[in-house]
């Protein structure tokens, strides 16, 4: 194994971290150089992620463990492993790919402006920091480090929402989001403290073996705290109020990273549910709580999107509803897995839910990026003040339409491929739930058609911004996401087999392999 591949997991965190703190320095030398530097860091990070993923899948998708630290040997003869580790299984690598896609699109999009705005250096720095946190959350094998990375994403994400201090609304949103993020972080920390007090360890694999002997009351309390905290940060109903504010008030490129951040919290939830507790404690009631929250999230997200007049808030509520689809699918998978006789539709549900995560990142991202251009061109975010964008911005119009159709689950786009898997498997568990999910999807299509009609069609309104073409890098960034939307829609089988199935496998039956990868090399 070569050195670069060996150190890839830690480089994935180190490169953007160094980049984030170097950005203000490089920015002193000129804004052109800074954009080049940020782009370079993003490309490098994506390349490392791609290389790591490629070799991971080539090696048969067995978990990779990267150890920081080693063992402590005291003169008294006592030897103890003192180390922190990254652990990557199919699910982590899959999430890493989503993050890399979102990061590349966001940085490309932001690398050119119609005009340089104040706070751009800060934004670049915070975006890289957010990427660091998300990668860290997805790769770490240590519960406390998970909390640390969670807080890094919280601080970076809230600063991104609120860095435009001249705008009162963004401050209001940032305060709300930060309060909720901090609360969710403290719930997680309290659970970490409880588990540490009980078992004296922080390693996820180690804790999983200890909980493996049957869950005590403390374990159940810790599980409740972890699930509450992570569901809150993922934006599930009833704690979804922060999500439209955050997505709506953040700049376009940051919104896509915020979506990736919510998905990382969802990843944490799955990791806790399937790996940390998994077969040791997985009551059916938990699956039904998850499914109930998911259905509520879908319904609330779609109905709230219906009444929005603000384009970005409309898309943001769409994003909330998609979190519901992922939770629904994984809830169905969990219900099928924990049933007395596990049925294989649960595996399809897991595949569908995870596949929907990458699809959602691509099409919601596409919508947010297109909306950013539309809002800047129209000079307003109110749908009633817009109109006729399609006359001037042909590519943006096409990308927005593609994103909207994909999100609403129209064939042959990627949203259809994953939603079909979700509908099929949910129908096997409960036909009513599947019907609710399908109806919500149709309603979502209506929502986006209305938005499309209001913003893009109709007579040309007087543009407030200077009439200049959309920068190439923004088009390239949207083109990248559009490519994913189309490719994943046309060849779903190809991508599901290669990247989604190992991830679903990690949830379905990968708990022992995850534990073994750490515990077998323990040696005392």
């Amino acid at each position, binding site marked *: 194994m070569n050195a670069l591949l060996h150190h890839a997991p830690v480089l994935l965190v180190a490169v953007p971290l160094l980049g984030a703190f170097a950005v203000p320095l490089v920015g002193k030398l000129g804004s052109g150089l800074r954009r080049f530097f940020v782009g370079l860091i993003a490309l490098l990070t994506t390349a490392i992620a791609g290389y790591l993923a490629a070799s991971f899948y080539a090696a048969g998708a067995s978990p990779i463990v990267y150890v920081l630290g080693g063992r402590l040997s*005291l*003169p*008294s*003869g*006592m030897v103890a492993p003192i180390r922190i580790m990254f652990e990557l299984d199919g699910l982590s690598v899959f999430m890493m790919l989503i993050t890399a896609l979102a990061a590349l699109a966001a940085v490309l999009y932001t690398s050119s402006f119609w005009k340089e705005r104040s706070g751009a250096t800060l934004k670049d720095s915070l975006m890289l920091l957010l990427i660091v946190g998300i990668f860290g959350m997805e790769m770490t094998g240590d519960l*406390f480090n998970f*909390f*640390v990375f969670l*807080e890094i994403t*919280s*601080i970076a994400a*809230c*600063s991104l929402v*609120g860095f435009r*201090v001249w705008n*009162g*609304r963004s*401050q*209001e*949103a*940032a*305060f*709300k989001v*930060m*309060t909720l993020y*901090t*609360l969710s*972080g*403290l719930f997680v*920390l*309290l659970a*970490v*403290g409880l588990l*540490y*007090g009980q078992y*004296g360890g*922080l390693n996820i694999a180690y804790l999983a073996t200890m909980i493996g002997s049957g869950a005590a009351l403390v374990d159940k309390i810790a599980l409740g705290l972890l699930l509450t905290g992570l569901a809150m940060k993922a934006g599930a109903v009833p704690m979804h109020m922060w999500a*439209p*504010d955050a997505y*709506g*008030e953040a700049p376009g490129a940051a919104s896509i990273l915020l979506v990736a951040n919510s998905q990382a919290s969802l990843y944490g939830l799955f990791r806790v549910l399937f790996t940390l507790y998994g077969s040791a404690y997985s009551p059916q009631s938990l699956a039904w709580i998850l499914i109930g929250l998911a259905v509520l999230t879908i319904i609330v997200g779609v109905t*709230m999107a219906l*009444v*929005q007049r603000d384009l970005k808030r409309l898309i943001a509520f769409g994003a909330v509803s998609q979190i519901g689809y992922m939770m629904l699918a994984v809830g169905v998978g969990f219900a099928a897995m924990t049933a007395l006789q596990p049925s294989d539709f649960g595996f399809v549900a897991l595949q569908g839910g995870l596949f929907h995560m990458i699809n959602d990142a691509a099409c919601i991202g596409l919508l947010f990026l297109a909306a950013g251009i539309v809002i800047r061109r129209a000079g307003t975010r109110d749908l009633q003040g817009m109109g006729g964008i399609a006359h001037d911005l042909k590519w943006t119009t096409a990308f927005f339409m593609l994103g909207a159709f994909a999100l609403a689950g129209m064939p042959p786009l990627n949203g259809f491929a994953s939603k079909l898997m979700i509908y099929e498997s949910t129908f096997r568990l409960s036909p009513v739930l599947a019907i609710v999910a399908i109806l919500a999807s149709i309603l979502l299509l209506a929502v986006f058609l209305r938005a499309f009609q209001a913003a893009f069609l109709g007579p040309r309104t007087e543009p407030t911004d200077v009439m200049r073409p959309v920068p190439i890098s923004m088009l390239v960034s949207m083109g990248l996401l559009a490519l994913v939307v189309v490719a994943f829609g046309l060849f779903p089988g190809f991508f599901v087999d290669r990247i989604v199935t190992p991830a679903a496998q990690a949830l379905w039956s990968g708990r022992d392999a995850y534990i073994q990868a750490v515990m077998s090399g323990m040696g005392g």
Partner: protein
Amino acid sequence: MTLGQVPFVVSALLVVIGLYALLFKRNLIKMVIGVSIIETGVNLFLVTVGYRAGGQAPIYTYSDPTTLRVLPTPQALTLTSIVIGLATTALLLSFVVFIHRHYQTLDAEKIKELKG
């Protein structure tokens, strides 16, 4: 209830008081104080978890092998969490300053541009 359990009860009380402030106070500064109190409660809990009566700090290389040594992990966790707490509190307060600048009020009920 023994004396050793008192810190656990106090940390639970702190978390509850903080949650109360966060949920029922309308003043933004008081909400930040609430978050800060929850943080203190959690930190106190972490320190208490790590406490071993009669234990020695594991910093002496040639200490007596038979003495009870305390694993420094909870202390390290608490330190990290205090630093993170400082950053989040500072960020929250700076948002409050800017909110006051824009709306001339700290009453959460009156700051309602983002609704629905």
